[in-house]
């Protein structure tokens, strides 16, 4: 018998098809990064120092990205500051409730919400939230950094809620029962046993939500007011602003390919990808990591 018979030609063709698809899938991420990197040349050779400035004025060759970076971060912080506590507390209630029906209803509502496209959130922001903010705070316009933060909070709430609820439900029942058998109150069981047990997954959920908040374009773009300046005073979230994504969404169509203007936008995009990739990577790492660590003898 001939054990060394070569693979039939169709086999070889199949094999190369598998290989090529795998290579494409694995390489796209790198291709995207390289493509973006390739377009950053003009602004870097033109006036790199202006990048770190606070003025964005393409006509004068000034491409300060600080206002956009600041806007992205502030909007993200507002969204997280609202959605994280709200999501975690709600998840605690859902995970601890005895009503299977309530849990079922909320879980399916969340699934529906997670499927709503971001442009629809943008529409809701324009039609309702910005109007309410303007009326409620008696301002001329409701298109503010705060509004963008609010709409983002609403958008990432389902993500945080679902993932946190999963994390809490995954804490072994036996851990809770042992804690309860020692006469701990419900809140003590949750704060001292359940949350520490689930904290890594909750943190990962938070990081994923952060990445989503940073990368969100349409909803933010429609409600943030598109003002390329740092608010004054700096923490005034009741002023219009700009995030990296909203900037890209507004100006990519208007800037000439290959110009310093375009390449400044690309550079911002590159910064955005690097931040979100870091966040996703950190979340993945947290999820995969094994628990470890020694603590103090007494509390």
């Amino acid at each position, binding site marked *: 018998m001939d054990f060394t018979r070569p693979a039939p030609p169709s086999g070889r063709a199949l094999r190369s098809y598998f290989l090529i698809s795998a290579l494409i899938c694995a390489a796209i991420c790198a291709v*995207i990064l390289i493509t973006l990197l390739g377009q950053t040349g003009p602004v870097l050779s033109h006036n790199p120092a202006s990048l770190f400035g606070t003025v964005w004025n393409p006509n004068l060759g000034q491409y300060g990205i600080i206002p956009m970076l600041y806007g992205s971060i502030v909007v993200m912080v507002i969204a997280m500051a609202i959605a994280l506590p709200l999501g975690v*507390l709600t998840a605690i209630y859902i995970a601890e409730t005895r009503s299977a029906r309530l849990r079922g209803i909320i879980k399916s509502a*969340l699934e529906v919400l997670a499927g709503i496209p971001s*442009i629809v959130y943008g*529409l809701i922001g324009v039609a309702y939230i910005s109007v309410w903010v303007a009326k409620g705070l008696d301002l001329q316009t409701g298109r503010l950094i705060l509004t963008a933060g609010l709409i983002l909070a609403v958008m990432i709430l389902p993500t945080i809620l679902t993932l946190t609820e999963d994390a809490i439900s995954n804490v072994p029942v036996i851990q809770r029962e042992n804690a309860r058998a020692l006469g701990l109150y419900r*809140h003590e069981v949750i704060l001292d046993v359940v949350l520490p047990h689930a904290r890594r997954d909750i943190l990962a959920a938070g990081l994923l939500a952060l990445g989503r908040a940073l990368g969100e374009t349409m909803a933010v773009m429609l409600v943030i007011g598109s003002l390329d300046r740092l608010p004054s005073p700096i923490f005034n979230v009741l002023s219009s602003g700009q995030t990296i994504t909203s900037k890209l969404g507004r100006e990519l169509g208007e800037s000439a390919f290959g110009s310093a203007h375009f390449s400044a936008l690309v550079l911002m995009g590159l910064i*955005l*990808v690097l931040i979100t990739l870091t966040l*996703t*990577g950190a979340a993945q790492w947290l999820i995969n990591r094994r628990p470890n660590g020694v603590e103090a003898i007494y509390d």
Partner: protein
Amino acid sequence: MISRAAKEHIFAAATRAALGLSVCILAFLLGAIIVRGAQAISLDFLFMPSRDFGSRGGISYQIFGSLLIVLTAGLIAAPLALGASVYRSEYIKNTAAQRLFDLALYGLNGVPSIIFGLFGLILFVNIFGTGLSWFVGAVILAIMMLPTACMATISAMRGIDTPYRENAYALGLTREQTALRIIIPQSLHGLVTGLLIGLARAIGETAPIMFIATAFSGAGVPSSLAEPVATLPTHILALAQQAADPAALQNAWGASFTLIALVAMFSLAAFFARARLLPLSQR
């Protein structure tokens, strides 16, 4: 110091308040979309082309354009996801290489959607000189769908018991034949589910296609690969920017409702595909 019992009450009140607030938000979102959408929807609206930059008339071309782009994207992504998943689960045996591949997929999944638009704008529209083209939009959406489709397929392949493979090898089947006759048929449900979930997400995407594949008005049925189409998300974007006009806003809600109905359709299809296509051995 607050007593333990008092803390218990405070904590319970806090979680209940959070639940109340969250439920209000969920109810408001769903309610707004359904009520405003239902007011705007009619047969005429669904089957008439738009007029006056979309603020009058219907959304027939937008529906057509959206479906055209995402279904084409699905057709492009399917073979790539299938091949890559087979290679990942049947050929790569080295853990480091597996990790690297997974990392690339997770990375791709974490790239913000606007970046895909930027990438398409640079590489296809400008460097390859395609101009605004619905087909380029489909390619970009296909890339966005790849991680979802691949992960679902790979996890389905992981679910196939090793004895299947061992038996196939024992019968003298080559790796390729095993993949073709055993692995792919047994993991088809993963691919279909992943693709449908990917489609549900892709059809709602605006940022990746708005610079490369769509025209805001006046686009009809394209006669070549290199023409823009109108899509629902970009239509909503255009209308949302004229929110001061009640008619435009009304149409925006109608388009949103239609878009969400399409998303729900793909999600439901994914749900049923999973149930129907799951091989007997895994039920």
